[in-house]
């Protein structure tokens, strides 16, 4: 009997990552291949695990706030908003209207920054080199606003429990408005580059389809769910921080493929700009900090509060034992839950599409591993 050679093997198991440029961090995917076809995958994660939830139990409520920025470091402002809202819920206080409006502006700017980084790197993965330079150029303007506001560009710690620490700086409104006017034509420019580009459409259409039912089954949220045709956005479904005052649309796709997820995120950037414009025009005057005691000791109890982060539903489940530190702090990270659907999306597809699908899920490994 002739010996079986390497080429006779029907299934080839290869490693993608943890050091691989298109896994967007330290994600290791074990691929089971039959030629070009993917028979199955297994994700190996945890390379960036820092024990954020354990740290939370050992820090006071205020001390822990900067840590949340380091989970989804691309959208640190959203992380901070979710955490502050959760602690405020436990304390049963609400941030003043002025603080809420500024929070909305900064969070939506952060959504734009997060989507821009996604678009640039996703396009880079597919083979379009130009968009990443454009995207980082525009993202820089958002980061400048953050820097002017609180001194930090990435891990901003922009909000405090009960409101804001800093008043807006002189010229904040003008600068934000100027950014919005300048930014919309840029989105059109990206769309001109990509939306009808034959290679782009060819690489994305029909790739990595995740139906609405599959999304719900896997708990997938955010743009991925909306691309599958479910018009669900927590900003609309369960408004927080005054989102009910603003007019905006929730874009959806039809096929739940990679191309639809692209169009949904592009439209979300436009809608975010729309929200920012409305919010900037009517920032109320008044205090920026609610009545929060210097020592935060929420009464015994528990609460789950979630927001629509750029990547999906970001939730905090906090159990308080009436001490200065959370008794238990659980983060429900959208990236972690969404990544679980990867296997379902790539199975039966081509190995080259794995790169496109990881990109379209828009995961941040800092949040997956915590």
């Amino acid at each position: 009997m002739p010996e079986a050679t390497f080429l006779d093997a029907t299934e080839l198991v290869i490693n993608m990552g943890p050091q691989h440029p298109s896994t967007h961090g330290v994600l290791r995917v074990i691929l089971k291949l039959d030629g070009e076809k993917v028979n199955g995958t297994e994700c190996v994660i945890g390379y960036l695990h820092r024990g954020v939830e354990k740290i939370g139990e050992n820090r006071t409520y205020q001390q822990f706030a900067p840590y949340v920025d380091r989970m989804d470091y691309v959208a640190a402002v959203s992380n901070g908003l979710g955490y502050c809202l959760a602690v405020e819920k436990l304390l049963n206080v609400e941030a003043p209207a002025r603080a809420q409006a500024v929070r909305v502006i900064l969070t939506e700017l952060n959504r734009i920054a997060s989507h821009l980084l996604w678009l640039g790197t996703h396009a880079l993965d597919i083979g379009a080199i130009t968009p990443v330079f454009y995207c980082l150029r525009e993202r820089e303007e958002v980061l400048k606003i953050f820097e002017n506001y609180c001194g930090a560009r990435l891990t901003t710690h922009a909000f405090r429990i009960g409101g804001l620490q800093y008043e807006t700086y002189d010229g904040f409104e003008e600068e934000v408005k100027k950014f919005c006017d300048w930014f919309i034509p840029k989105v059109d420019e990206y769309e001109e580059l990509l939306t009808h580009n034959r290679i782009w459409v060819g690489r994305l259409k029909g790739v990595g389809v995740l139906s609405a039912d599959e999304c719900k089954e896997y708990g997938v949220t955010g743009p991925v769910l909306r691309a599958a045709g479910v018009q669900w956005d927590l900003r609309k479904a369960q408004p927080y921080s005054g989102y009910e005052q603003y007019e905006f649309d929730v874009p959806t796709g039809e096929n739940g493929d990679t191309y639809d997820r692209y169009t949904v995120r592009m439209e979300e950037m436009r809608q975010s700009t729309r929200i920012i414009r409305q919010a900037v025009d009517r920032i109320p005057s008044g205090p920026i900090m609610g009545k929060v005691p210097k020592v935060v000791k929420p009464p015994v109890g528990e609460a789950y509060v979630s927001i629509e982060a750029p990547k999906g539903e970001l939730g905090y489940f906090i159990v308080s034992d009436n001490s200065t530190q959370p008794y238990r702090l659980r983060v429900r990270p959208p990236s972690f839950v969404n990544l679980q659907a990867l296997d379902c999306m790539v199975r039966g597809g081509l190995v080259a599409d794995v790169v496109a699908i990881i990109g379209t899920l828009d995961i941040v490994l800092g949040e997956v591993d915590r």
Partner: protein
Amino acid sequence: MADEQNPEGSAAPPPAPKPAAPKPAAAAHPAPPKPPAVMVTTPWESDITEALKERFGADITEFSTYLGQNFLVAKPDAAIPILETLKLELDFDYLVDVTAVDYPKRAERFEVVYILYSFARNERMRVKTTIADGYSPATAVTVHLAANWLEREVFDMFGIQFAGHPDMRRILLPEEWQGYPLRKEYGILQQDDAWVRENMGIESGQ
């Protein structure tokens, strides 16, 4: 010289700053009335609770609301049938999260929490159940596929084995790691030193 300085050094600092700092804090503290040491909940009644009461009876021990958030407490064996009923008959079709809370002083030390959402009702609720150390609750993967990784993380962090789970392994920590970090007795600086020595080639990660 060292002998002369030492008694001086140890005698000088204590009287100056130490008693001064805690006193005003201690005086300020007793003023507000002490909040109760238990969660002050109100009963939760709706069509959901009616339907569940009829179906599960004594298996559900509590229907409550805290800060406008509804939850129920169920016996561990009933948790998965409840999730299934909620999904199939009451539209709670999205399992948001599975997590646990450790109360080492209680006889049944772990509280397993399932957070659910219904797209049709736009409503959230939590299903909670308490289990003792070593008890294996049934997996929720049979009802929601999302439970797969979430339960693996609970196992990784708390050491709760879910019976019938298709892939009950650690997910964030290395597979050979000893100890469950989110248990209360696990220190913040503690780690599996043997693993660190063997795999990282260093004495300690601290």
